């Protein structure tokens, strides 16, 4: 995270290249001296890094223990992992996991993340898999380092390993307290030279076993995140802060309407701007390059260019979107999933409900627009970036510019949040392209309107649901049909699908097929049909409505419809919505990973934590005055993580304004590495869900996106923040035969059920069911007025 932590490994690698004759056993020690002398200077760390290294940049070998762990002469350790942390505390959690396996105190260690030349390629971040998947090889290599150190210690102390104990990196004899040796005395400043095994990075292992949970000392502790102090005192060097000698500034000029073709550019319109360097264009990609940042911004605003609009409208206007989706012929359909005989069950049902739900396109709209700095000096390409998938950016840029992979590296640094936006890091490719064209370092940052209009979008969905209840009010049949605009879902840093490649006309012959997501149904519904279709827009390429991964890419949409409809069924059955769900879970047969039992546990825990949950059906009886209060519950899972959320809302009948006043969440992601960091992630995931429930929507006419800033694209603000948030970490694995509770992911699960919980709470408060998000006050007011008449 903090770039100064990149010094030791990066410089020792540099030293090895500068002086290849340095013996493997001692160069670490000499590089330690070099680190010290450079560390004293006032030059920002990353700048020294940039000048010290000139490539080539071979892949760090994940099968070498030295790639992952270095023990320093002062008996501290540095861990190197191939993940990125957008502020959810995974770096701190990884450190805790590795400390425990290595038997070192947290304070004795540091962690370096995500740069393609210094850390093993673990793919960067995505899919909430950091703790669940990538934490395992980290634990295993740390356990292996401990095993190797114990063997070395046994040799040094002339004591069998079985008679040794380790604490804080000090090995001591169980029988003779005077006999001890620390890790540094064994390998400090030297290499382990231990080869690991494993067919891929996730399978990396030594021969040591990882520890059982009961022996863990650092895991489970609420340790403060190491990256926070530098983020609040102004000392952190962010990716956007990087400067290299001779650096130029660029800004993009996007087509004024989607699908427009560039006819001509009048370079004289900007030539008189001080510091103007060049206009670069290729196909429909256009950028201006200047000496200074504000000059590039001015030039991009001022550049005169002639564009030819497309013959056909690229998409319908957002007001017509859902009519369009419902009337379109799908471009593909997935095989329906069928359980039982829904048709027959509907025939015998005493009550049949039907409903349609609509979810618009929603964007990432990161607080900091996309950024990259590319430096082509020394016949290589270094990209300073906050790309969450930095390794993919490195590979993609190498292909895009036809450079050998080992001449390209990505230096990962902190940047704005990463919920999938930088999985396809358009700006990294743009900076590299411009740097390659100009032969000088080029810094690019998108402008606000560009980021909000042209970032990748979460797919829009239209849903149709039908449910049947029997005489007891039991759900006996359910049909779910989703239509997603997810044609040409963008890939991960692909050199032919990033925006610049699309605009240059360099793209694959076929679009990606995409798919409409299904709910992961844990409920026991005897007769069930799930169907999904993909609908395409007229324009698949060069469009600002590019779909990509946005925080659990389809989960919030699907859960809004599914958990909203379950709530409708509970109300129709005259049942309490929590009790209705508990009974559906109890009726479930599925229990491969004890998700059913754990799901029941989170639902019960949420209700208990809520306090005073009265068993009653929704809606609540109408209340006097304009403010109507209500509660809404929703449950969901993602992978093996299960969550139940209750939202308390206040709806103003006169204005339509909705305030989510309180949130209660029960969350089970298995073993909690850092309960404090976990609660932080769960909390912010929920608030992001509120923002999507109440505010966020991509709006467009039939040629361009019209929601382009924080006025036209509102987001949750301070005034609408809940006044209370209660999070219960359930972490209960009911399997008594499994002593080790696995650690599952938590980055997205709590985000997923929020839109449903808010809609269900609005219904409870008002008796009005909102099936089209977001629930901005105008839409709510209209629905309330319609219901009254």
């Amino acid at each position, binding site marked *: 995270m903090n770039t100064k932590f990149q010094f030791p490994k990066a410089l020792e690698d540099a030293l090895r290249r500068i002086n290849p004759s340095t013996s493997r056993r001692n160069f670490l020690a000499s590089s330690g001296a070099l680190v010290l002398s450079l560390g004293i200077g006032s030059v920002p760390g990353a700048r020294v890094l940039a000048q010290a290294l000139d490539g080539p940049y071979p892949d760090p070998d994940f099968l070498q223990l030295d790639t992952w762990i270095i023990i320093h002469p002062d008996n501290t350790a540095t861990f190197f992992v191939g993940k990125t942390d*957008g*502020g*959810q505390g995974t770096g701190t959690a990884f450190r805790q996991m590795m400390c425990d396996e290595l038997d070192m105190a947290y304070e004795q260690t540091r962690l370096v993340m995500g740069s393609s030349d210094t850390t093993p390629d673990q793919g960067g971040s995505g899919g909430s898999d950091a703790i669940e998947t990538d934490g395992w090889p980290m634990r295993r290599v740390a356990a292996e380092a401990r095993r190797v150190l114990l063997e070395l210690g046994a040799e040094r102390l002339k004591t069998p390993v079985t008679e040794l104990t380790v604490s804080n990196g000090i090995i001591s004899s169980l029988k003779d307290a005077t006999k001890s040796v620390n890790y540094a005395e064994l390998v400090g400043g030297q290499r382990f030279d231990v080869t690991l095994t494993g067919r891929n990075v996730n399978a990396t292992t030594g021969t040591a076993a990882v520890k059982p*949970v*009961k022996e*863990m000392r650092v*895991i*489970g*502790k*609420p340790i*403060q*995140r190491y*990256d*926070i102090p530098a*983020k*609040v*005192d*102004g*000392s*952190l060097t*962010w990716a*956007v*802060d990087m*400067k290299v000698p001779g650096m130029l500034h660029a800004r993009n000029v996007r087509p004024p309407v989607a699908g427009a073709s560039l006819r001509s550019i009048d370079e004289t319109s900007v030539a008189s701007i*001080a510091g103007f360097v060049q206009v670069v264009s290729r196909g429909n990609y256009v950028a201006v390059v200047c000496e*200074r*940042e*504000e000059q590039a911004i001015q030039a991009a605003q001022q550049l005169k260019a002639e564009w030819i609009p497309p013959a056909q409208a690229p998409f319908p206007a957002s007001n017509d979107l859902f009519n369009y989706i419902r009337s379109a012929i799908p471009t593909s359909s997935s095989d329906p999933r069928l359980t039982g005989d829904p048709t027959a069950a509907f025939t015998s049902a005493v009550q049949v409900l039907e409903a349609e739900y609509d979810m618009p396109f929603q964007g990432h709209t990161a*607080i*900091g*627009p996309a950024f990259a700095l590319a430096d082509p000096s020394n016949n290589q390409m270094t990209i300073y970036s906050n790309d969450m998938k930095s390794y993919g950016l490195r590979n993609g840029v190498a292909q895009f510019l036809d450079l050998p992979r080992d001449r390209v590296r990505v230096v990962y640094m*902190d*940047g*704005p*949040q990463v919920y999938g936006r930088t999985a396809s890091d358009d700006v990294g490719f743009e900076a590299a392209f411009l740097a390659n064209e100009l032969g000088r370092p080029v810094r690019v*940052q998108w*402008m*606000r309107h560009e980021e909000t209009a042209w970032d990748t979008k979460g797919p829009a969905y239209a849903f149709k649901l039908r449910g049947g209840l029997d005489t007891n009010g039991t759900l006996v049949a359910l049909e779910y049909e989703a239509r997603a605009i997810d044609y040409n879902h963008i890939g991960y840093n692909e050199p032919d699908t990033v925006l610049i490649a699309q605009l240059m006309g360099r793209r694959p012959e076929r679009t990606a097929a995409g798919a409409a997501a299904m709910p992961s149904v844990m409920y026991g519904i005897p007769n069930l049909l799930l169907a999904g279709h993909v609908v395409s827009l007229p324009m698949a390429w060069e469009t600002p409505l590019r779909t990509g991964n946005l925080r659990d890419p389809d989960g919030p949409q699907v859960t809004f419809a599914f958990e909203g409809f379950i709530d409708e069924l509970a109300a129709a059955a005259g049942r309490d919505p929590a009790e209705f769900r508990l009974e559906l879970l109890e009726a479930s047969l599925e229990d491969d990973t004890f998700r059913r039992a754990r799901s029941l546990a989170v639902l019960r825990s949420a209700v208990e934590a809520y306090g005073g949950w009265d068993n009653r059906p929704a809606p609540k009886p109408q209340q006097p005055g304009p403010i109507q209060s209500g509660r809404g519950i929703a449950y969901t899972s993602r992978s093996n993580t299960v969550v139940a959320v209750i939202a308390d809302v206040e709806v103003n009948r006169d204005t339509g304004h909705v305030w989510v006043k309180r949130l209660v969440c029960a969350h089970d992601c298995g073993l*909690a590495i850092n*309960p*404090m*960091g976990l*609660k*932080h*992630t769960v909390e*912010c995931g929920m*608030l*992001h869900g*509120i923002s999507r429930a109440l505010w966020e929507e991509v709006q467009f006419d039939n040629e361009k996106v019209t929601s382009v*800033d*924080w*006025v036209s694209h509102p*987001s*949750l*603000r*301070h*005034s609408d*923040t809940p*006044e209370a948030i209660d999070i219960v970490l359930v*972490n209960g694995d009911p399997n008594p035969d499994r002593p080790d509770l696995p650690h599952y992911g938590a980055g997205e699960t709590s985000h997923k059920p929020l839109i449903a919980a808010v809609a269900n709470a609005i219904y409870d408060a008002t008796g009005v069911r909102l099936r089209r998000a977001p629930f901005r006050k105008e839409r709510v007011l209209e629905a309330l007025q319609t219901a009254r008449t």
Partner: protein
Amino acid sequence: MSVVSLNVNGAVHEVDIDPSTPLLYVLRNDLGLRGPRFGCGLGQCGSCTVIIGGVAVRSCQLPVVAVSGEVTTLEGLAQNGILHPLQQAWIDEQVPQCGYCQNGQIMTAKALLDRNSKPTDAEIREGMEGALCRCMTYFRIQAAIKRVVNGPELVQEKDQQNDLEAAV
């Protein structure tokens, strides 16, 4: 171009620059400061906030020539190596996720408390309204401000104790 004199965090700098240049780019690119950041360039999000004459100002919108008075940036809040109470509260409450907006949050909170040392919850919400966070750390930001206003609450210590008890 013309030479503009700027007092930033107590030090006077002379910069030869187009006087219409927004202050943000001078702070970042000429003076090497890293607190204020580009978020929107429209004065809508607060990421670029600095304090001038006790007022939180959006530096992305302010021509450098129009600056009068000392500019305080995030880097200027700590005194003699001691963090400002707001910065310490931001650590105690573990406020940031990505942290990109937090310059604006802290600087806006500083200006708020400088003019009203005992704001109510409603006044905190109102005073912070213009500072956007897309990681959605609002609840923690408000908790950190209340920590400075009221002192650390028992309930938070209890919460930490719960975390410890949740530890395996």
